[in-house]
């Protein structure tokens, strides 16, 4: 059963997932860009997979191409679930 999608829950999932891609936790904020965090396309694909497993929300390659910041990613997942 997929977890309920709330902005807070998705933010927590994303913030907890990013350090496994080598991101320094202190650098993570809604406004931080994935580029600045050194999160690349494969990392984003893996993050999408984590989100899909957790919330049942599928993000495609096209979607992932559009998101620039941590906040964009969270908002996209929340809007998809709605």
């Amino acid at each position, binding site marked *: 059963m997929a977890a309920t999608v709330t902005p807070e829950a998705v933010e927590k999932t994303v913030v907890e997932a990013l350090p496994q891609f080598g991101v320094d936790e202190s650098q993570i904020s809604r406004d931080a860009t994935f580029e600045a965090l050194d999160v690349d396309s*494969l990392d984003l*694909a*893996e993050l999408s*997979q984590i989100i899909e497993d957790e919330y049942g929300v599928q993000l495609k390659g096209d979607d992932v191409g559009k998101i620039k910041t941590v906040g964009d990613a969270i908002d996209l997942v929340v809007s998809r679930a709605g």
Partner: protein
Amino acid sequence: MARPDDATALVTGASKGIGAAIAKALAADGWQVAVNYRSDEDGAKATVKAIEEAGGTAKAFQSDVSNGAPDELFKQIEDELGPVIALVNNAGVAADGLAIQMDDDQWDTVIGTNLTAAFRLTRRAMRPMIKARYGRIVNIASVVGPRANAGQSNYAAAKAGLIGMTKTVAAEVARRGVTVNAVAPGFIETDMTKDIPEAVIDAIPARRVGAPDDVAAAVRFLASDDAGYVTGTILFVDGGMSA
């Protein structure tokens, strides 16, 4: 990095020939093996039995991999054996004919099974591999593709495509500990190649056809911990044909 304990290898088209030999070789190397077959249940059972008698673990899984929905197959294997950490895309078909006379169905069938199905299985298989930071994908290509073989434009296109896919996917996932390689057999003695004319054998530098075990040994190596730094490569097992 070492292979996870419950690691399972999925070999498609493993009821006979090269696929069966690969399944046995991987089992002998400590992999739990998912023996996939489309219609030859007896063959798949015989492969499983041979593995079990040799002290290995294997199970047969029926699925037509060309149907485009590998998720169910993976879930079944994950439930009954363990996560698929090695995938051997071996299932293949041939439908020969000169290009000028080849109908759409011959083209689509061969591309669909030999290339598209391999891609879809690869895409699905990479998910647990990326998570595990360990994975092995071995695509069974062919000397046909890199070189010509009149009457096999569909097969050559599919196998050349498989080689292109191997290299690019390898580059995409290398830093997650997932390797993607291809083995390109030459003439190997199987049902698919039983009527090879003498002149063809004379053109092979080794002057003989290969055995399924020759191909299986190459796959076993590429799937092993020892091959962790080998990725995106094409290993020819062809008695020197491509030399």
